[in-house]
């Protein structure tokens, strides 16, 4: 079962209806049952594997979290809660070195390592056995050793990379005493197998999600409407844009040896749209479905193609995975608090592992390494870039996103575990508000000292952190030349970042490393001959009307991201319209997806790109 299948469109309303009818005490049980049905539709043995991993995680959590000092959060009883989402305990714990660890902590660390080895071992067994054996065979052949091993044909259980990472994150959080171990197996099982995020994320965090499963959830009309609209937007991204773009991309990538280089460039640009809409579409549907069920999932994408640097891009793209790697791999490796060689090494390791997470192919590893190298080279060249920008009159901190919020744009989701206000209990709200106020104050101080800056606009969310796409926001003062300069600089940076990221997508999408190299050669050697005609565009799998529909939809997507980047919220805007207009807009949106979406019997519904990971 998958979000854009007919089965899900029947399954979800039934689950929803019963979910809000049954007594609140068994809501979690019902959700768990539904989640296992959802996953079991892919094969009962998969559901069995999921259960075993859950059981292992449960036991491991209890062992690793034995005598945990983390505070058990009871939102109803303890309003003066000490622990917030960046737990002081964990920070203290993180700073401990192995020399300062007590025997008890050393034992916990050992158990954690053991359980993580088992978890990741299972994942690696399914994902990388074939890759490893085929490479060993190839190496042996090259060395002249007559040793070949046939790779077993292992089917990777769908969504395994996601739920294993989620389970591993929980164990590390328990070890770090971010949270106490979960003693309720049902609740933990639901955390790991919650069906909206089970197959392709977002990879949830236990300190964020488990407390939500502790609360009872009632039906709320406004939340239902917002969730439904979010789902609709996800379907638009997936069915109308991603699947339409895929037709052109598949055609070009499948026949690149017969096509000119410009078609490869075009297809790669469109692939950037496809993969964004495909994956973000899935995450958006998941988020919307969860919202209807009263669960707030982490936002997975935040206008990634408006990023001004590769580093910025990875804060906005697949946030749940990026932040997972940041918190559970990059920081433990030393993060950026070490010498520059070690820092660059850490970055490279994280991105190569990220590449491997996406697939057992050399092209994925190259893709990951390329993204790591972009950041390393960017860092090395920072003085040169600053010098050049200085010639144009820019401040030395103009490229620093923290010191120049005008360049940063939306920073809302940097705190990846921050729940939205509408799901917070009063005690959480007060903590959040306090945190936001502190952040705003520090930002404002930076902002006021910046040479080129912008005021927070009227339409800003509530905290003034959003600064406009091109560094310019609506304000009472007149725009001056420095605003324009900042806008141009930001636009140039966005375009350069997009070009770099898009180049790396070529490796991601190509059938293999060899194909990727051949395609680059084709672009460089045989870009185009003769006069260009628009009709050439229509021979790439999409006819004229479909091609232009795709372009129009991309513009709609860009406009929507632009609004979001500025802190706007389209769905809330729609829901605030007068009744008939609002219902008309919603119905028109549904019809748009139904008519222009690529769906139906001839369509392969199991084609979400991120399902293979």
């Amino acid at each position: 079962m998958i979000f854009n299948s007919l089965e899900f469109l029947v399954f979800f309303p039934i689950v929803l209806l019963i979910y809000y009818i049954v007594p609140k005490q068994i809501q979690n049980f019902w959700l768990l049952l539904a989640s296992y049905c959802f996953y079991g539709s892919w094969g009962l043995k998969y559901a069995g594997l999921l259960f075993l991993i859950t059981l292992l995680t449960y036991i491991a959590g209890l062992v690793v979290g034995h005598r945990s000092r983390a505070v058990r959060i009871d939102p109803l009883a303890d309003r003066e809660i000490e622990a917030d989402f960046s737990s002081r305990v964990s920070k203290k714990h993180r700073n401990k070195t192995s020399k300062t660890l007590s025997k008890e902590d050393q034992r916990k660390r050992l158990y954690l390592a053991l359980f993580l080895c088992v978890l990741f071992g299972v994942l690696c067994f399914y994902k990388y056995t074939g890759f490893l054996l085929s490479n060993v065979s190839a190496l042996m052949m090259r060395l002249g050793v007559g040793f070949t091993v046939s790779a077993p044909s292992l089917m990777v259980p769908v969504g395994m990379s996601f739920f294993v990472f989620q389970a591993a994150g929980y164990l590390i959080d328990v070890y770090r005493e971010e949270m106490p171990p979960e003693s309720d197996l049902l609740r933990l099982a639901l955390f790991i197998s919650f069906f909206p995020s089970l197959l392709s994320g977002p990879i949830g965090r236990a300190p964020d999600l488990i407390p939500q499963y502790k609360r009872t959830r009632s039906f709320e009309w406004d939340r239902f409407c917002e969730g439904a609209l979010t789902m609709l937007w996800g379907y638009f991204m997936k069915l109308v844009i991603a699947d339409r773009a895929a037709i052109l991309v598949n055609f070009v990538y499948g026949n690149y040896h017969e096509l000119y280089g410009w078609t490869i460039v075009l297809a790669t640009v469109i692939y950037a749209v496809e993969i964004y809409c495909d994956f973000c579409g899935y995450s958006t549907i998941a988020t919307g479905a969860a919202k209807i069920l009263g669960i707030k999932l982490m936002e997975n994408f935040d206008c990634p193609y408006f990023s001004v640097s590769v580093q910025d891009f990875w804060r906005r793209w697949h946030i749940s995975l990026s932040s997972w790697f940041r918190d559970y791999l990059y920081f433990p490796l030393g993060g950026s608090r070490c010498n520059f060689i070690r820092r660059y090494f850490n970055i490279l390791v994280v991105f190569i592992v990220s590449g491997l997470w996406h697939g057992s192919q050399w092209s994925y590893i190259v893709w990951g390494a390329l993204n790591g190298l972009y950041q390393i080279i960017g860092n090395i060249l920072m003085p040169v870039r600053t010098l050049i920008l200085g010639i144009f009159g820019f401040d030395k901190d103009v490229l620093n996103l923290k010191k120049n919020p005008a360049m940063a744009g939306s920073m809302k989701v940097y705190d990846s575990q921050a729940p939205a206000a509408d799901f917070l209990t009063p005690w959480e709200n007060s903590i959040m508000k306090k945190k936001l106020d502190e952040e705003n104050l520090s930002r404002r101080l930076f902002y006021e000292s910046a040479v080129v800056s912008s005021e927070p606009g009227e339409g800003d969310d509530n905290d003034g952190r959003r600064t406009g796409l091109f560094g310019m926001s609506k304000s009472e003062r007149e725009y001056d030349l420095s605003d324009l300069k900042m806008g141009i600089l930001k636009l140039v940076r966005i375009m350069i970042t997009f070009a770099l990221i898009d180049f790396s997508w070529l490796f991601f999408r190509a059938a293999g490393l060899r194909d990727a190299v051949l395609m680059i050669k084709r672009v460089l050697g045989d870009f185009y001959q003769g006069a260009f005609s628009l009709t050439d565009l229509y021979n790439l799998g999409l006819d004229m009307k479909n091609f232009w529909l795709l372009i129009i939809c991309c513009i709609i997507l860009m406009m929507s991201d632009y609004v979001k980047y500025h802190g706007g919220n389209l769905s809330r805007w729609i829901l605030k319209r007068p009744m008939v207009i609002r219902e008309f807009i919603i119905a028109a949106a549904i019809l748009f997806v139904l008519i222009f979406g690529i769906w139906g019997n001839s369509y392969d519904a199991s084609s979400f790109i991120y399902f293979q990971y």
Partner: protein
Amino acid sequence: MMPQVLFISSIDGFCMRIWKRIVSLVLVAGFVAGGIFLGDKLTTRGVSQQKYVKFFSEKQDYDVLFYGSSHVLSGIQPMELWKGYGITSYNLAGHAASLGMSYWVLRESLQYHKPKLVALDIYDMYAFDQPYMDISFMHYSLDAYPLSKLKYEAVQDLLRNDTTAARMELLFPFSVYHSRWNEVTSDSIRQSFDKNLFNPYCGSEARYGVAVPNSIDRVPAEDMTEGSEGADDYIKRFVETCRSEGVDICFIRVPYPASTDNQRAENRVLKLAEELKVQIIDMMYDVENDGKLSSIVVDWDTDLVDPNAHLNALGAYKVTRFLGEWFTRVYGFENKLTNPAYESWNEDYKNVYLPALTVDLKLQSDFKTCLMLAAYPEFETELSLTGLYKGDDVCDKLIKSHNDLITTKKVTSIGEDEIDKRAYFDLDGETAVTDPDPETLAQPVARMVVKNRETGEVLVDRTFFQ
């Protein structure tokens, strides 16, 4: 008093909120349903609907309904049955329709009309594991029928081994047709709402062209394949359904150059029909006994549109006339040509069928096809041939077989004044030179003028080069 007022006003507020939400949902559902209805109307292919418009709207019950595959579709012309014998009929056959599909179309159609007789073609009954059929062809036979319990049962049965999505495709054709949004034009929109757009041939589809098959050995009647449980079951259910509805049933064997395998399968059906006491109209009955497959109705050399399967319009005309004779003699159907209750049939013949046939005729450029169409008694044809004309055996056969429907005259040449401003074709129908050249051999060799027999209106005036 105050708390009571507050309580009532909060109840009112709650009711109002619920009421608003219900209205919201109804509005969205209404807009979406309306949009889907409109979208469905604009994007649907419509061939199925066009086929069934007349069938659904007919007030009188039919004498005969025909079921089967494309052999029946192109092999029987209900309007000729009407014109020649005053028998009302409708062709409910479908492209590549399996036996299973014919059974379900029978069930659906009997909800609208109870005919006196049902005729089912026996072609391909054992060809596949019934009810196998390509889903794209299923739309032609089923789309016109509204969603109902019976249609649901039909889809469940016909696609029993297929996916839910495939079933949904048949139950809600919008799920596939929505992708035709890029084919919507102002013309197609106009056609979508045009109630006068329907199949003018009472469900059948005339085919034009002439092809000659290879000679095929006849398989003896006792040589037959083993039956398949699925097919036997459908045949029995088909017969039972007709009988339970009080409708007479017969099997027909529409002529075609059947392979030996097909013949064996048909021998099996003929035997089963005997067991079930179903009458058979076998138009490939062996009368010549020369060991070769032949038909008592059609001529293989002139009456097929493709060498392996389908009858052309001339073949269909002959088969229809044969069936008309048979139905009149054996079943005693009354000739209703002059019955005032059936006046609409005469009007349809005159105002719908004949104009459609004329349009088809005007579209033809192949010499043999034009000759073939001259078989219809509605037309009279004048054929001028010069000494340079060298027709093949098929052309000669076609000309001779039409007797007095064609007037042939020999001429020395076809004058330039006569050929001015006309298109030129070679005898195969390919567009030829645009300007005859007396210096070369590029001279016209034949001219065909086809007129409406009743009005004398010239419908076609073609000039052909060798």
